[in-house]
C-alpha cells in the first residue's frame, strides 16, 4: 500500500476527543495517540513512548502535556518534545527527544492524517454542512470492503459516480447525500465512516444516526459473513532514533536561527512590557520551565530573557521586559523601536536554571523582574499539582503587572510592595526559617537579594544544594590577564588561551561550536566539564559546592589557575 501513504484518511471523529482524553487510533497498521490539548490543538503522535516503547494512550492527558504511564516522561503539546524526565529532575531533556508526530487536519467532523501529504484533505462535493455518523469497525481488509461497496446496492440509495475513488457518494430517495469512506486500520480491520449532508440536531439527529448505524451495521455483518481469508499482518517499521539520542550528547545548537514575529506588545505596567513572539514558519522548539532565549536586537545587541510560558504553550513564546530608563540599550530598543509585526532573530531556548520537580515544596523568591523565570516554573508546578509558594518583592507601580500570569494560583502568591532593605531581610528570614526534607528555595532578582537569600538560607541550616538561583547579570569584575593551555579530550586538540581572550572565544575561533548565551558568567549555557586542572571561577552561576568540585566551568569568563585544563569536549 505504498500509494496509500500520500492519501488522507480519517482516523477519528472530532467527538472522539473529549476533554483530557487520549484516543487510541490506528491507520495502515501504525498506532496513534490522538489527543486534544486544552488550547484546542489536536495532536496525532505515534502511540509509543520514545523511552521504553510503552503505548502513550495508557498515559494521561495533562491538558498541555501528555504523561507516559511507565516513567512519567512528559511531552509537550504540538512539538511532542520531552519536557521532563522525572528520573533525572535536574537535567533538561535533550531537545531532540521528540515523539513522532503526524499531520492533522480537521474536516467534516473528523480528524484526518497522512504520512506524506500532498495537498489538503479533499473536498467532498455537496457536503457544505453535515452530520457525522457513527463509525463502524469491520473485521475485514480494506480491499474487501472496497470491493463489497462498489458491487453492493444499498437500499434506498443510488450511488453517484465520481472521480474521487476513495469517497463513495450516494443519493437518497429524498434527495439527500451520504458519503462513505473506509479507513484501513490494519491488515484485517477497516473502519467504515460516513457523513450525511444535512446538519441535524435533537431527535432528528438521533433518528439519522440510528438509521445509518443500522444500515452500516448490516453492511458490516454482510462483509464479515463472507469469511474472506485473513491477510498476513505487517507491523509498520519503527524508525530508529538519531544517533545522538542513544548516547547523551552535548548539544550544539545553531545560534539565533529562529525567526519570530512580534504578535503582541502589551504594557503590563509603567515599566514592564510583555512581548508575545510567534514563529514565522517552523514549529518553535520545546522549552523547559526556567529557560531563556537570546534575542538579537536591531543594533546587533544580544539580550537574554526568560520565557514566562506555561507548560505546553508551544505556539508562542512570551517574555517580559523591564524598561530601564537609564540602563543599557536593550530594554530601550524593545520599548521604543519594536512593534507588533516586527521580525526578530532569536535562539532556541537554553535551559540552565532547571526546575527540580522532585521537591515536596518549593519556595520561590523573586525580586522585581526576576519573577520571569519563576512564572514559568510556578505554572509548571501548578499544572503538576505540586506544592509551592511564590513571594514577589516589587515596587507598588509594578504590582499588578503579572496578576494575569498568577490567575490560576493566586492563593500561592504573596506580593510585597516597596519594602525597605531591612523589611525585605526580615521577611526572607521568616520565610526560610524552617528547612524541611526535600524542600527547595529558588531565588531570582538583583545580585544583592540573591546573596542575602543564600546567606540566610545557609544560616538556617538549608543545604547549599537546595538553594537555586539565577542572576540577571554578573556584577563582579572579570579579569582576563592569565595565559594557559586547554586540551580538548574528545576532539584531541590543544589550544593556547592568551590573556585578553576567553576560553569560549578561543574555542569558537578554532571551530568548536559551543553554545553560549549571556557571555558574562550568569546564564550557564556555556558550561563544560573539566577533567583535569585548577579552575579560576569568575561566574555567578555555579554554587560554591560546584566551584569547589573543580569539574565544571563556564567558558565565557572562567580561566585556569593551573597551566593547563583538560576539557571534556
Amino acid at each position, binding site marked *: 500500500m505504498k500509494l496509500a501513504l500520500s492519501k488522507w484518511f480519517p482516523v*477519528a471523529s472530532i467527538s*472522539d476527543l*473529549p*476533554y*483530557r*482524553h*487520549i*484516543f*487510541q*487510533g*490506528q491507520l495502515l497498521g501504525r*498506532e496513534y495517540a490522538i489527543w486534544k490539548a*486544552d488550547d484546542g490543538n489536536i495532536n496525532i503522535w505515534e502511540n509509543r513512548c520514545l523511552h521504553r516503547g510503552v503505548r502513550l494512550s*495508557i*498515559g*494521561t*492527558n*495533562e*491538558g498541555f502535556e501528555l*504523561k507516559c*504511564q511507565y516513567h512519567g516522561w512528559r511531552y509537550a503539546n504540538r512539538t511532542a518534545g520531552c519536557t521532563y524526565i522525572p528520573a533525572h529532575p535536574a537535567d533538561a531533556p535533550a531537545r531532540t527527544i521528540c515523539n513522532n508526530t503526524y499531520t492533522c487536519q480537521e474536516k467534516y467532523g473528523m480528524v484526518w492524517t497522512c504520512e506524506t501529504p500532498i495537498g489538503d484533505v479533499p473536498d467532498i462535493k455537496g457536503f457544505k454542512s453535515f452530520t457525522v455518523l*457513527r463509525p463502524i*469497525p469491520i473485521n475485514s481488509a480494506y480491499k474487501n470492503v472496497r470491493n463489497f461497496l462498489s458491487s453492493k446496492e444499498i437500499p434506498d440509495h443510488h450511488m453517484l459516480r465520481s472521480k474521487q475513488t476513495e469517497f463513495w457518494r450516494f443519493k437518497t430517495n429524498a434527495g439527500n447525500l451520504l458519503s462513505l469512506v473506509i479507513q484501513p*486500520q490494519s491488515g484485517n*480491520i477497516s*473502519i467504515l465512516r460516513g457523513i450525511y449532508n444535512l446538519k441535524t440536531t435533537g431527535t432528528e*439527529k*438521533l433518528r439519522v*444516526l*440510528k438509521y445509518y*448505524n443500522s444500515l452500516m*451495521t448490516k453492511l458490516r455483518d454482510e462483509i464479515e459473513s463472507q469469511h474472506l481469508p485473513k491477510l498476513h499482518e505487517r507491523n509498520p517499521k519503527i524508525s530508529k532514533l538519531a544517533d545522538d539520542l542513544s548516547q547523551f550528547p552535548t548539544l550544539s545548537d545553531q545560534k539565533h536561527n529562529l525567526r519570530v514575529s512580534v504578535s503582541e506588545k502589551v504594557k503590563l505596567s509603567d515599566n514592564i512590557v510583555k512581548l508575545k513572539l510567534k514563529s514565522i514558519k517552523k514549529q518553535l522548539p520545546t522549552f523547559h520551565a526556567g529557560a531563556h532565549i537570546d534575542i538579537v536586537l536591531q543594533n546587533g545587541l544580544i539580550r537574554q530573557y526568560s520565557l514566562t510560558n506555561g507548560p505546553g504553550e508551544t505556539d508562542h513564546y512570551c517574555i517580559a521586559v523591564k524598561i530601564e530608563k537609564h540602563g543599557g540599550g536593550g530594554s530601550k530598543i524593545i520599548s521604543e523601536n519594536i512593534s507588533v509585526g516586527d521580525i526578530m532573530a532569536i535562539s532556541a531556548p537554553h535551559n540552565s536554571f532547571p526546575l527540580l520537580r522532585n521537591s515536596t515544596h518549593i519556595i520561590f523568591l523573586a525580586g522585581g523582574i526576576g519573577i520571569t523565570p519563576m512564572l514559568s516554573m510556578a505554572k509548571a508546578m*501548578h*499544572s503538576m*499539582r505540586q506544592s509551592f509558594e511564590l513571594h514577589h518583592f516589587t515596587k*507598588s507601580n509594578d*504590582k499588578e503587572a503579572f*496578576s494575569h500570569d*498568577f*490567575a*490560576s*494560583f*493566586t*492563593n500561592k*502568591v*504573596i*506580593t*510585597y*510592595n*516597596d*519594602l*525597605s532593605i531591612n*523589611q525585605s531581610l526580615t*521577611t526572607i528570614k521568616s520565610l526560610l526559617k524552617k528547612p524541611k526534607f526535600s524542600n527547595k528555595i529558588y531565588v531570582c532578582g538583583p545580585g544583592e537579594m540573591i546573596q542575602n537569600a543564600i546567606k540566610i538560607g545557609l544560616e538556617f541550616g538549608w543545604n547549599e544544594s537546595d538553594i537555586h538561583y539565577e542572576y540577571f547579570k554578573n556584577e563582579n569584575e572579570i579579569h582576563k590577564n592569565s595565559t594557559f593551555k586547554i586540551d580538548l579530550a574528545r576532539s584531541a586538540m590543544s589550544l593556547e588561551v592568551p590573556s585578553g581572550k576567553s576560553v569560549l572565544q578561543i574555542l569558537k575561533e578554532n571551530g568548536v561550536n559551543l553554545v553560549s548565551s549571556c557571555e558574562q558568567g550568569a546564564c550557564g549555557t556555556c558550561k563544560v566539564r573539566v577533567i583535569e586542572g585548577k579552575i579560576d571561577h569568575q561566574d555567578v552561576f555555579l554554587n560554591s559546592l560546584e566551584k569547589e568540585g573543580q569539574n565544571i566551568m563556564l567558558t565565557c569568563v572562567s580561566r585556569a589557575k593551573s597551566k593547563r585544563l583538560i576539557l571534556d569536549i
Partner: protein
Amino acid sequence: MLKLYDYELSGNCYKVRLMMAFLKLSYDRELIEFYPSKKHKSLEFLEINPLGQLPVLMDNDFIIRDAQAILIYLAQKYDSQNNWYPSEKPSLVAEISEWLFFANDLTATSSAARLHDGFFYTNIHVEKCRKKAHDQFRIFDEHLYFNEQQGFPWICKSQYPTIADIACFPYIILSEEGGISRINYPAVRRWCDRFKRIPNFIVMSGIFPAGPQKVPDNEAKQSKILNGN
C-alpha cells in the same frame, strides 16, 4: 461492622471495593488467596460460601454472596442519595438489572480469557471467550454511543452513575489482560475515562487512574499583598 472476603486481583471483589469507596464506607478485609493456593475452594471458605466464590460481604451477621447482589445491598442500605440504585424508579431499576446480567456474563468471556492468559486456567477455550467478549463489547459500545448522543454519560438513562456502571467496569477495563483490545470501542474507552473520574474512585492492580480534571482555579481570586512603608 462490614467485612469483605477479598482478593486484590479479582475484578468481582474490586466491584465491591469500588462501591465502598464511592460510599465512603470503612470495612475490614479478610484476604482469601484465590491464586495460586485456591483458598476460595478450601473447606473453611466453603462454610462461608458453599459456591466457593469471591467476594463475600458480612454486615454483622448478615452474609451476602455474589458481587452484583452485594452492590444492590450496599447501595440500598448505605446510599442516602439513592443515586446508585434508585429503587423508587422502576424503569431505572429494570435497566440496571439488565446490565447487571450483562456484567455477570462478562465473567464467562473477558474474565475467563484473563484467567487463561494470566493465571493458567487451561480448561478455558480462550479463542471462544475472546470472540464472545468482542460481540459483547460491540453491543456495549453502540449502547454507550447512543446514550452519549442523548446526553446520558452512563450505562443507564440517568445523570448519575449506577451500580450497573460499577458492575461492568472491572472486566471491561481488564479485558486487555485476556488479549481483548478495546481499540475498536471508542465509546467504551470514553466511558472508562469518565468512570475513573467519579469522586473517590480507587484503582486495583492493573488499572491506572485517569488524567487530572482541569486544575481547579482558586476560589480566592485575591492574592495577598503586603505593603512596605
